[in-house]
């Protein structure tokens, strides 16, 4: 579990959570995994700390007592693109969607397991790393997507995709590991005027599964995030 971090230096993370117990728990998960952790107990304190020090990553609880978590998120997003992963509870899907559409990178639902939390943070950090070189050929198990030639192969055999299917696939693989809300995907692939037509997405994700999944009945790539959207899983 305690995998080594590929970066040379420590990653600095800020935890904004009013519960000391959660602060301790997350700190104890992050520190052995190469993170340097700072904590804040209120939204105001979190905003102040985030402004004073540069952090590589912010973990934000949505249930803050003073300023709402969403308000904190929006304020931070006004001046920085630091990856933000939100901590939330089950049954709060509208809140999660609002947070994701307001600029949060991902979310973790309490109670979460250690591996899940670390994976979300790694993905958020990877997508925030603007300096990285964009690879034109992406490989996911038996699936290969060449973004330069638009060639998609499954088990080394070319798969024919329509232009919409390809646009959707490209969006997924470029955000591999990251959750995308229905609205985000619909805006990106079909345009803002179609952002509420979830049915398009249901149909096209099923088409991609039928064409690209090793077993369409047990999807390994195109994962459904209940009530939120989809996540393209990259192991």
């Amino acid at each position, binding site marked *: 579990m305690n995998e080594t971090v590929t970066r040379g230096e420590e990653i600095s993370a800020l935890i904004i959570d009013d519960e000391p117990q959660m602060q301790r*728990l997350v700190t104890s998960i992050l520190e052995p995994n190469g993170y340097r952790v700072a904590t804040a107990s209120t939204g105001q304190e979190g905003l102040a700390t985030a402004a004073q020090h540069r952090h590589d990553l912010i973990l934000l609880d949505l*249930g803050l007592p003073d300023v709402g978590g969403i308000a904190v998120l929006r304020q931070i997003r006004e001046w920085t693109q630091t990856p933000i992963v939100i901590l939330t509870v089950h049954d709060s899907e509208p809140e999660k969607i609002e947070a994701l559409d307001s600029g949060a990178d991902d979310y973790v639902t309490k109670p979460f397991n250690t591996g899940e939390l670390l994976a979300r943070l790694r993905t958020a950090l990877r997508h925030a790393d603007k300096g990285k070189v964009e690879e034109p050929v992406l490989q996911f198990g038996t699936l290969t997507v060449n973004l330069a030639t638009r060639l998609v192969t499954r088990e080394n055999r070319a798969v024919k995709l329509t232009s919409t299917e390809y646009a959707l696939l490209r969006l997924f693989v470029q955000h591999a590991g990251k959750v995308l809300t229905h609205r985000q995907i619909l805006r990106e692939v079909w345009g803002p005027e179609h952002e509420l037509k979830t049915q398009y997405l249901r149909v096209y994700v099923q088409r991609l599964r039928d064409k690209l999944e090793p077993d369409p009945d047990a999807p390994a790539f195109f994962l459904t995030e209940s009530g939120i959207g989809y996540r393209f899983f990259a192991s």
Partner: protein
Amino acid sequence: MSLTENRLTSFLAPPWRQYTATILMVGIVTLVCYLLERSVGYQTLALIYLLAVVLVALVVGRIPTLLGAALGALIWDYIFVPPRFSFHIDELYDKMMVATYYIVAIVIGDLTTRLREHQEAAMKAKLLSESERLGRTLLNSVSHEFRTPISAIVGAVDNLRAEGGLSAAHNEFIDEIDSAGARLNRVVQSLLSAARLQAGQLQPRMDWCEARDVVRASVHESARLLNGHPVETKIAPGHHLAKMDFVLMQQAVSNLIANAAVHTPPGTPIKISARFEGKELLLQVADHGPGLPPGEVERVFEMFHRLPNSKPGGTGLGLAIVKGFVEAQGGRVCAGNGVDGGAVFNIFLPASDKPELPEEAS
């Protein structure tokens, strides 16, 4: 200025008080008019009666207001309009004056009461939505309060396990704590769902969903509870799109799966299928257990109802939540026994709407 004076309105709640107040008001105005008549002339007095009608309309209902308007017109006519102390009116312009007064009084009285009723309705709605918001905030904070310590337990156990180097006995304890934490989380989930249902706080977010996705997510969610029961999913190729709340449906179907896993002999399969039946989408969970005893078919979905001789454990909420969640989405549930034995639970969701789909060949 607020149109309603709360204390006055509550004092005037009984109708007889409204009528008394109206008659009293007309009486006082008549007295005032009597004193003023010499200096202002009888035609101006009509305006004072109109003012009285408006004031009365602010605090009493529509019918007493109309009564006040009529009473005012009659008294004004009788006492002040020449010839005095007679309902007879000599001049045409006086007749027109009385008629105009009467129409204006009715219209103003009606408009004022209507305005007031609107305001009262808006206030009631605001109070209601505030109490709803309070209820929701309370449930959310209870949810947060429970989930935080559970997260701490599950997370700490996870950390311990990750560090490794523990004895077999310690690992057993860790597994115990872990499964107790997961169970606690499920119970909290059930209690909160039931509380939301009881408080009428459930607001389904209806959107197009694929039944296949819902079934898959439900099987995944209940994987931990299957206890060795194999799950067989049967969904014909093609789309099974219907409007539903994905999260609620996922919990409903996984509750049915968990219910089947608990009440059937170990190792027997649980069959899940989805198909359109007429104008409805049917999601079905069938098991190979003993089936439902006679008389239980109607009662299984009741809250806290448990089958006689059922195993200990369980809150008696699972199936009630299924029913509540499905009905909140405009669907219905029913239970019965299959032809080859075993219990069958059906969820029907309305599916007469068909989605508008993009046109592009696949």
